[in-house]
């Protein structure tokens, strides 16, 4: 990735209590690119976004945006930085007591002194960009999941941020909405000259729109590359993830104790099943002994 980095994550460690989430992470997000962070549930993807947004501080290491270390900023500095960011939450996080129009206008009214006529035009342009100009009078409860995500996208880019973060933007969308949202992410990034970080599970959609991908597992980067490099990768994790295979380095089961012990298995016996004798394991007290 030759272009200049907007976001740099260096040697970042983070833990929730005693549970380590990120272990020595190093990532670079160049300007004007769409970069995906992928990995299984609970691998630390959203934690990475929260670190970039300054909601949490790393245990060690740093996150730098535009040359500024995020966790060293004071409250005013952090808010000044956040004005240059946009974040699309998993389910949109639209303000349910406001109309679509007011949701998109919200940041403009809070952060600028623009007259209402100009705000009106800007809101309409943002809604037009996501194809939902006609919904400006509706309330969030009247929108479908895909539409809510697109309105939230319009709100996210309301002040033309330099960095846009997407937390699972494709979750729960039908195939058409999924393609629409995917294309919007790419188009808006190009139109705004921004940098987009997309945290997602959706490999196929991501491979279509992103410039670079990071694969995260157990708190470390285990693979990275352009979509072509990822498709051609023979790493078992990448193969498992890209092809959605059940068997592979990512275990299906969360670590736990001995299965037989959890089932309280006590004894086995031979019983007839389909005219064959098979061994059956019983759990609980041995009924034969009771008899």
């Amino acid at each position: 990735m030759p272009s200049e980095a907007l976001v740099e994550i260096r040697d970042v460690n983070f833990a929730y209590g005693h549970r380590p989430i990120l272990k020595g992470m190093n990532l670079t997000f160049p300007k004007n690119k769409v970069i995906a962070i992928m990995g299984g549930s609970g691998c630390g993807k959203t934690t990475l976004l929260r670190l970039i947004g300054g909601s949490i501080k790393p245990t060690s290491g740093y996150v730098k945006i535009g040359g500024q270390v995020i966790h060293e900023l004071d409250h005013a500095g952090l808010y000044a930085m956040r004005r240059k960011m946009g974040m699309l939450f998993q389910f949109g996080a639209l303000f349910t007591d406001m109309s679509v129009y007011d949701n998109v206008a919200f940041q403009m009214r809070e952060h600028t002194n623009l007259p209402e006529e100009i705000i009106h035009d800007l809101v309409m342009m943002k809604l037009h960009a996501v194809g939902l100009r006609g919904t400006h009078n509706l309330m969030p409860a009247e929108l479908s999941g895909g539409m809510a995500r697109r309105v939230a996208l319009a709100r996210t880019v309301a002040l033309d941020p330099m960095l846009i973060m997407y937390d699972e933007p494709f979750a729960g969308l039908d195939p058409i909405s999924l393609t629409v949202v995917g294309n919007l992410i790419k188009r808006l990034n190009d139109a705004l000259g921004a940098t987009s970080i997309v945290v997602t599970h959706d490999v196929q959609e991501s491979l279509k729109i992103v410039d670079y991908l990071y694969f995260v597992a157990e708190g470390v980067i285990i693979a990275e590359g352009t979509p072509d490099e990822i498709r051609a990768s023979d790493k078992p994790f990448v193969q498992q993830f890209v092809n959605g295979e059940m068997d592979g380095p990512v275990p299906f089961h969360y670590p736990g104790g001995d299965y037989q012990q959890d089932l309280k298995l006590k004894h086995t016996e031979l019983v007839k099943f389909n005219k064959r004798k098979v061994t059956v394991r019983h759990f609980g007290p041995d009924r034969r002994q009771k008899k």
Partner: protein
Amino acid sequence: MTTAITKYLVGIGRTVMNALWRIGIGTRFLSLILLNSGISFSRFHLTIRELFFSGVMSLIIILVAGMFVGMVLGLQGYETLKRYGSESALGSLVALSLVRELGPVLAALLFASRAGSAMTAEIGLMKVTEQISAMEMMAINPIARVVAPRFWAGVFAVPLLAAMFSVMGVFGGYLVGVVLIGVDEGSFWSQMQSNVDFQHDVLNGVFKSCVFGAVVTVIALFEGYDAPPTAEGVSGATTRTVVESSLAILILDFILTALML
């Protein structure tokens, strides 16, 4: 046996420590609200909007409750005063009971159940649906934008609601005492006028209402803001709001009454 007693004592200690911890965090939350209250006054329409939702929308329950409380006071007061031949003092009994105690206390209790629980549920659900996080990511302080206007709306709403409660209560007492039972109308109003002191009775009642309004609202907002972002968390927070607010109102009522007498 010793272990069981130790466990019991540890449990009590933990509960007390948790309660103190929450009071500490709640106080810090209140100071944050006060520090971030500028926007509630510089953009007063935000506070007015919340005043509408928490105050105006609570009017019906307050007016109806006030009316019936006043009617009961009229009936009970007449029955008691009749024994001493002092039926003419019914007006002052009804008014003093309402202005000093029942108005501020019952209005605050009703406000806690109607508006306080709604505030907790609303803020809690805003957390669940990441609206609060979204606001923070937009560099907008949710304490200043969402919480402080609601707090001031509560502080303004409760005294106004208590006043409406008392007015309706007096009207209810008048209906029962004068219109239904036949107490002399002139003595009903003149006794009330001569015995209700503006500073000692009315202003003290208003002061109580302001304190109750602040306490109920800060409990409701804190519980909502502190609620775990789950359905169970919001439900528990809403219940706690009503229980804690009701207890706080009754305990504070005793303390304030003792201080002001």
